[in-house]
């Protein structure tokens, strides 16, 4: 099966934080952005908004450090890294280990939670009005960049002629 990943186009994001809302509604039933699995990091002074979700790293530190194997990889499910709520003891070691500051501690459930692609239908993608987040095949993530680079290349070749 083709793996799919979350791709963020940071230039499109308006920082509306709708993704945080729908994420928390989907996962917890509460409309509470502080419990969402995606966080929009904002630099208001330069107008930069960046939705940060789990990268589901190939070599995931959170999986390595988890003492209970609650944090594990599911190859059959988009190769996602996910945390088993029933096994997690809330030790927060994965939060310390993650280089991207991703897993979050859920105050209400007293366990650590993280992005799990909403079981194949990411709500943040569905509800993003400006399509800043997309759920695409892993080998097509940089098609836009490639196209841009080749256009530049073609342009420069024309100039040389």
């Amino acid at each position, binding site marked *: 099966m083709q793996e799919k990943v979350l791709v963020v186009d940071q230039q499109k994001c308006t920082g509306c934080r709708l993704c945080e809302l729908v994420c928390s509604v989907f996962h917890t039933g509460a409309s509470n952005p502080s419990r969402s699995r995606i966080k929009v*990091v904002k*630099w208001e*002074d*330069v107008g*930069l908004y*960046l939705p*940060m979700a789990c990268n589901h790293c190939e070599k995931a*530190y959170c*999986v*390595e*450090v*988890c*003492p*209970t*194997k*609650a944090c594990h990889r599911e190859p059959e499910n988009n190769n996602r890294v996910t945390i088993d709520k029933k*096994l*997690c*003891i*809330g*030790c*927060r*070691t994965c939060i*310390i*280990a*993650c*280089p*991207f*500051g991703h897993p979050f*501690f859920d105050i209400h459930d*007293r*366990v*650590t939670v993280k992005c799990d692609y909403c079981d194949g239908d990411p709500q943040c993608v569905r509800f993003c009005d400006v399509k800043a987040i997309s759920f695409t095949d892993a080998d097509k993530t940089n098609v836009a960049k490639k196209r841009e680079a080749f256009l530049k290349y073609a342009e420069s070749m024309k100039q040389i002629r």
Partner: protein
Amino acid sequence: MIAIYLYLAGMGAGSFVIGILIQWGALINWMGVKLNPLFLPSIVLFGHTLNLSSVPILWGPIMVAIGAPFLILDLGIKWRFMYACLNPRTSWVARGFIILSIFIIFGLVLLAKSVLPFEWLHAESVLWRIPEIIAFVFALGTAIYTGILLKATKSIPLWNTHLLPLLFLVSALSTGSMAIILATLGTGLFSHDASALKVLMYAVQILVVIEGIVLYLYLSGRYRVSEQGKDSVRLLLHGEKKFIFWGGDVLLGLVLPFVLVSIAAFSHGNILLRLGVLHAGIKDQIPMHRLMEIQYDMRAMKIKENWNAGKGIGR
């Protein structure tokens, strides 16, 4: 709460290691020098005579056993703490759980051996060396383990170094031997110039000096390794954490014990005063040091998060 655990575990494991070294040192001629064991009397409790000759060994496991529940209190779901040993293959938390459990169990076995009034338990057989050796190894493990746990965090440059476990081990040993000195001085019953005590005092001075050297190497090494490491060390030396570092860690933790032990080794002054200040010295050293590092890395993580997120834009 983590700081309480770190303090108790460091001191307990350190004093256990030192205490057992003293006991072994008393048993054999060690490099031609025969150590006198610390002279500790027996007390009568509930009609039983308790032999206190190995007290430094005994309070180690007790301290670690008192400290360990603080770790559990820090968990999100407390009653699931037994799950923490499920993944010893890659996780240092799971390995630490096992190390701590074994140390506490064997330490308490040794404690039971010397406290319980059964005659058959008191047999000084060679067999008792086996649990002693196991407990000794795992006490070293307890002292080092916290350092390794932090070292295994690859994404935080301030922690990811081999010197950190070494630093924690040396500070645990110096704190432990300091605690033994305090206990022997504090009871006021003992001759001040017991030879083991003198050896201990020299040991503490050497350990404190080593600790200072390791601390210097650690910080300078971290300063060079990367941008974030540089930020962390700067924050420690000149930033908002500088008072804790210079006051709590360097002055109270390193300079004072060294000076006081030097004085104590050569003169007979006011023991109580010395005791109070010494106590402040060792008490502040470990939790402050480690708490500060933890707080620190929370900041370093934030900086790093910003860095990863925006490639440094907007700082």
